[in-house]
Structure formats: C-alpha cells, structure tokens
C-alpha cells in the first residue's frame, strides 16, 4: 500500500523541495508560511542542507541569487509583503537568467493587510512583479498533493529555462492538512547542464553572472533572448486541469484555493442538470491561453472566480474565443471568510444559458 501522510500544505512544499534535491534555503519569518522554514531548519541538517534565516527578505532573495549562480538548487519562501521586498532580487535573477524557487503563501493586502487567504498577488506574480519587463514561471497548486508535486516541477522548469519560478499558494493551502502521497523525485533526463555557473575559472574561461548590458545593442539582444524563452514556455509548458468540457454550456475558471470551491459548486450545478465545466489553470505563467480558446470554441460563457476584485479575469478575456462572454465573480479578502460553494452556485445559475 502506498504511504499516505496527513501534512500541512506548507510542509508538503518543504518535503517536495528536499525530495527534489534542494539543499539551500534562505528565508525570513512571516505568517502564514513559517512552517516552511521551520520544517526545513529541522530536516536540512539530516541531509547536509544549508539553512539561513536571513536578516530580511531582501537578503534572502540575494542569498538565493548567490547560491543559484553557483549552480545549486535553492529556494526562498515568504508571504505577500515579503514577496514585495524580494522583487528587486527576482528582477536581477530574471535578468541574470538564474533559476530558483520563490514560494509565495499569499496573504491579504495591500500593505500589512491581514493573514487571510487571498489571490490579490496574481498580477504581481504573473506580470513580472519587479522592474524591467520579465516573467517568472508561476505555478498554482490547489491541494496539498500539488504543493508537493508542483514544487518539484517548479525546480525542473526553472532549471530548464533558467527562469526563476514562483509557487503561488495562499494561507488556506499553506495551513490546511490533507492526505499526501509522497513519491520519489525523478530528474528529467534532458535537463541542460549548468555550464554557466561560477565555480572559479580553473581550466576554462571566466564566467560572469550578470544583468548589466551596456554595449551597443547588447541589452536589446538580451531582452529578445528572454522574450523567446517566454514564448517557448507559452508553446510548451502550459498546464491546466479540465472537467466536463465536452458538453459544458458554462465554463467556470479558478486557480488555487478558489478552484476547490468551484469544484464543489460545479458538482452542485451538475446535480441540478446545469452543464457546467471547469478549466483550472495550473501554470499562471505561461497562461493556458490555448486551452481557453479551445474550450470557448464550444462553451460561450465563462465565469471567472477569484479571491480578489478581478485579476486573472484579464488574462481569461485575452484568451477566450472572440464571441465568448466572460463574467467575473470575486471578493476581496479580509472578511475572515471564504466564499461558499452556494454563493458561487448562485452566480453559476445567474450566468448560465442553455
């Protein structure tokens, strides 16, 4: 029988990272993600890992930059206000083409906001977050199992494309306990060698990890190179979960924690005889735009459900078939309560047309 463990989402992230060979963690305490550094600080000594509780979020992302420049799998984790502080370093990592995992167990904002679950960091996560026009790979788990699985995938994608990766969770996913079936990490056989990493120049020419390009045309060429990588990821790496698309008249789309609520609401709607389908983006960048285009070739009504006042819905509108109608239902976080399936079901009924 497979081993099943009852663990918190945050612990699943830490377990997945250790299993995927990450041996460098740099972070700073912040609710609701502190279980991650707590778990790693306990487990890393057993596997020879390096854990540093840094003086700030800024220092931790730059320690990650340094370890990654040496070719090591490395990570940091934080929650929304801390992720804002890390944006400078994430921009430098993107510019320097450094892989690395940044976990955002998001809380509500703006400012200090609160510690409730929130999806209000969607824009920050998928549109670049820092200065200079770049993207990070953004993966959105919706279960404890996915917190584990997608952590491993994030390292692989990040290494493959030399683009920093973000795991975007929230306080519900981080704090809830659910069954996890751990499985051994298998590295993709075709991951490219890190022949750019610094190690001292013995036996080869100097290597430089940098984001400064001042020569004639250099920066433009560099930005086109980054752009081509983002295009390649858009072609090859989008992931989503779909259900009931064959006969769906209305498509519900949601990511992360709201997708859990959506699944229940869709089941309730189906019980009423409403043909409702699900499209759950797993990669928020690259966004599964083709999946939306394909699905809305049939289902012409889309209801986007978010725990904010409308962010992913913008990408949905850009992706759907031209004659599809996109509706939005969302609530800003902070009330200490999540929308209920019944609340979403009412919206489904409102926008459903046979």
């Amino acid at each position, binding site marked *: 029988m497979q081993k099943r463990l009852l663990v918190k989402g945050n612990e699943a992230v830490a377990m997945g990272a250790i299993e995927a060979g990450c041996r*460098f963690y*740099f972070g700073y305490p912040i609710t609701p993600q502190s279980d991650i550094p707590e778990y790693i600080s306990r487990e890393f000594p057993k596997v020879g890992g*390096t854990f*540093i509780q*840094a*003086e*700030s979020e*800024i*220092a*931790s992302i*730059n*320690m*990650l*930059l*340094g*370890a*990654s*420049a*040496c*070719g*090591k799998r*490395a990570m940091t984790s934080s929650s929304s206000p801390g992720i804002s502080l890390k944006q*400078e*370093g994430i921009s*430098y990592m993107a510019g*320097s083409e450094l892989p690395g995992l940044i976990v955002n167990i998001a809380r509500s904002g703006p400012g200090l906001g609160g510690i409730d679950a929130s999806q209000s960091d969607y824009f920050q996560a998928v549109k670049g977050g820092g200065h200079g026009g770049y993207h990070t790979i953004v993966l959105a788990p919706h279960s404890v199992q996915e917190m584990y699985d997608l952590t491993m995938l994030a390292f692989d994608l990040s290494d493959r494309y030399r683009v920093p990766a973000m795991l975007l969770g929230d306080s519900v996913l981080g704090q809830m306990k659910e069954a996890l079936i751990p499985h051994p990490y298998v590295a993709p056989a075709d991951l490219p060698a890190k022949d750019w990493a*610094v*190690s*001292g*120049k*013995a*036996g080869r020419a*100097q*290597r*430089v*990890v*940098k*984001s*400064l390009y001042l020569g004639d045309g250099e920066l433009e060429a560099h930005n086109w190179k980054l752009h081509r990588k983002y295009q390649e990821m858009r072609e090859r790496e989008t992931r989503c979960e779909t259900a009931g698309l064959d006969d769906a008249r209305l498509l519900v789309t949601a990511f992360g924690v709201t997708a859990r609520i959506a699944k229940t609401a869709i089941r309730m709607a189906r019980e009423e005889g409403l043909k409702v389908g699900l499209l759950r983006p797993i990669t928020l960048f690259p966004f599964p735009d083709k999946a939306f285009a394909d699905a809305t070739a049939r289902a012409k009504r889309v209801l986007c459900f978010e725990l904010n006042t409308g962010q992913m819905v913008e990408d949905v509108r850009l992706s759907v078939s031209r004659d599809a109608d996109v509706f939005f239902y969302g609530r800003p976080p902070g009330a200490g309560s999540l929308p209920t399936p019944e609340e979403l079901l009412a919206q489904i009924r409102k926008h459903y047309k046979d």
Partner: protein
Amino acid sequence: MSSALQQVFAHPVSLKDVQTHFCPGCQHGTIHRLVAEAMDQFGVQDRTIGVASVGCSVFLYGYFDIDVVEAPHGRAPAVATGVKRACPDKFVFTYQGDGDLAAIGTSEIIHAANRGEGMTVFFVNNTTYGMTGGQMAPTTLPSQKTSTSPYGRNVANDGYPIRMAELLAQLEGVAYSARVAVNTPKNVVQAGRVVKQAFETQIQGRGFSFVEVLSACPTNWGMDPLTANARVAEEMIPYFPLATFKDTSAA
C-alpha cells in the same frame, strides 16, 4: 661579470591587461591591482568568485580575470553569503563602494559580518557617490560640498560620516577589520600588506575579513588628481584613521 635588467614590478596576472573606465587619478585602479596581486600571491585566481556591487565598482568582471557574480545595489554581502555557502572551498570576495555598502547595503554588510561569513570585503571609501555624479554619501565629511549637499554636509540635518571599519570590528563574527589608504607609495605598500592579511584570514577559515580603503574621487570632488590625492591625507585620514581595528590572528 655582466649585468641585465630584471623586471621588479609587473602587471598582476589576475588583472586583465585592459584600459579601465576609471577617471584619471581615481584610485579604484590601485585597489584593483592590490587585490589582484594578492590573488596571484596566494594562487587563488582559479578558485576565486568575486561579487560585484553597483557603482563605479560594477565592472569588476571586466578587469579581474576571475568568475564574477553581479549583485543588486548594496546586496553583495548577501549574494556572497549564498556563493560562499554553496562553494565553501572557493575564495569569495565583494568589492563595494561607500554608497553601496554603508547606505543601501548597511543591513546586508552588518549581518554577513555578524554571521562571520568566510568572505572578504573590500570597501572603497571616497566620501561620495561616484557613478551617479557626486552625491552625498554616508561617508561624506562634515561641511563637504556634494551635488546633494551644495552648502556642505550639515550634520544636524544629515548626520555624521560612518566609520565602517571601526563599527564592524565590534562584531563577534569579524576576524579582521582594517582601514588603509593608497595616497602615498608607503600607504600603498601598507595597503597591500593589509589586503594580504585579509586574504589569509579567509584562506585560514578564521571568519569575516574587511578592508576599508580611502580613495580619491577627483572628478566628483571637483579637484585635479594631485589636489584630490592631497585631500586624502589632509581631510580624510584625520576623520578615518588608518589602523587595524581587529585581527584575531594576533590574539
């Protein structure tokens, strides 16, 4: 018996044989040479990873023939922490200016030092932000005019110049902290000795080592190179005394 000429002063191998972008009389070049000479002497060029900062020092990789990681402004000690922890057998150093290290990067330098990271930090103090055009730095002297202290640094408003070598020497994790100048041949020779002490501190695994170097910035001081060099002795050294503030090897 006949005689021949023997080379007694040569360009260090670890320093690329290229023209620098530094202004005439700027002493970054001298400090680069001293660091490169130490690399040559200890034979660590091939296992050195330098961490570049932001400012006039940013082109480190263009001048040192070593592997280099470029850090965001002020963050070099954090980047170097990641590098040294990932590659503990490498020689790791940062090279930072006063705006970078003593203003925006104060948090990173103090905590890297306090953790006793086994890195070496070269800190170039020229009392101004050079790259951005001569603004007031945390090390700008009282009454010194800069482009953002046009009436002179007013300590009532701007506070006092920070003495970083003394400040860091207070931290337990720091094994070596010293201040030198490169304004006279004698001081250059002494600076070379101190740089090598700092290298040795890291190579022996004794902890964090820090060398502050007083340096002239003729362009932004609005002085010719000789006057600027004279200012180092007349104004800087009295406020920033040359000394070794901590050396655990002597204990």
